């Protein structure tokens, strides 16, 4: 019985496959800009007070991905920056649009800290992952002689994110990049469930970090 269960679990993990995804990327440059050696970037996101629902996991993924993929500019982790600026970069006090930058940078202590950290750009990320629809049915049962599942379930996810690049020197947005990834995940089960998961958020994270790097290297 135990051996059967281990075998079923092993096969389930072995067959965790990636579902198909469709990716749409966009880029827009508003103003000329440059990034100099030693200047720093911070990944930011709008507050939940403003109705933003960008997941922490996504922000962490972008932070990690950008840190791994390049050595050109310095990336200050979001939480470290928030702590350094406390209480002026909390959900209630952080700038929500480029129009708020003037007031934000108008505080002497804030400006001094930002100069000390050499922060030149905020990469303001918005968006979220949503499940659009789901269907099918899957049922599992277990008894003294063993267990198993039967059925088919599937769902559609869309991960849609936009990064607005805020130049703190110009106090304006110099450009936007966006990534929208859609995919259908399926779990067919004939005794053993075989999850075929479309990792839309992970794909969006990788595509977004590539686009951000591309944006800074090409401009």
């Amino acid at each position: 019985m135990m051996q059967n269960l281990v075998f079923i679990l092993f096969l389930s993990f072995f067959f965790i496959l990636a579902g198909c995804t469709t990716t749409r990327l966009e880029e827009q440059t508003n103003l000329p800009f440059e990034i100099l050696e030693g200047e720093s970037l911070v990944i930011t996101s709008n507050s939940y007070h403003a109705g933003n629902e960008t997941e922490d996991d996504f922000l962490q993924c972008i932070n990690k991905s950008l840190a791994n993929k390049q050595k050109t500019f310095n990336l200050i982790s979001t939480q470290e920056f928030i702590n350094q600026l406390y209480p002026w970069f909390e959900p209630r006090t952080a700038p929500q649009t480029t129009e708020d930058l003037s007031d934000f940078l108008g505080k002497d202590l804030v400006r001094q800290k930002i100069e000390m950290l050499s922060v030149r750009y905020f990469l303001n990320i918005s968006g979220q992952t949503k499940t659009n629809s789901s269907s099918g049915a899957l049922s599992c049962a277990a008894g003294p002689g063993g267990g198993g599942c039967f059925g088919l379930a599937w769902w559609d996810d869309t991960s849609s994110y936009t990064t607005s690049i805020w130049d703190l020197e110009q106090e304006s947005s110099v450009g936007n990049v966006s990534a929208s990834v859609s995919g259908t995940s399926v779990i067919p089960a004939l005794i053993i469930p075989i999850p075929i998961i479309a990792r839309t958020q992970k794909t969006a994270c990788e595509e977004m970090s590539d686009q951000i790097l591309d944006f800074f290297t090409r401009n």
Partner: protein
Amino acid sequence: MTTVIPEPLVAKIENFNLAVIYDETIKNYQFENINSESGEATIKIDFANSQVNLFNKILKSFFPELIELTSKNNEIYSNIDLYMEAKLETFELLSPTESRNDKYAVWLKYKIDIYDHKSILLSSWNITGYGEHGTESRAPESLTRAVDLALRDSGVNLVIKIEDDFKTLVKIMSTDL
């Protein structure tokens, strides 16, 4: 739980001595939703010294010589200009089951009474804090994060209140003299 409050980025208020008295609701608050009608597992939150740390961190950033008193007796300390009595008035928690979404939301409301050196009430402040966090990570971590955010938000509002209203308080004191 232990919420980390970073060193606040504020300008010190020199030559002013403040004493603070914390109510038991700040020193030792524990929350347990034993009356929950939603049928979900009991939620217990032990604030330990998180609230005292929050207030001390904020107040010491403005008043480096902050004195913490255990209780407010009528004794007059010649070196103290202002007394601050702080207590937690309200703690509210909304779990994902109750709100039918995927977030924990936490509200805090503090009442802070401010007395002059003659124990005359000068002002009462209501300081609130709000934090929410999605359950994308494990539920206990999301709840802890929502409480952390609410405590940090209370600190933000306390800083803003001190920066906005402290000059008015000093003005009231000087006209009373």
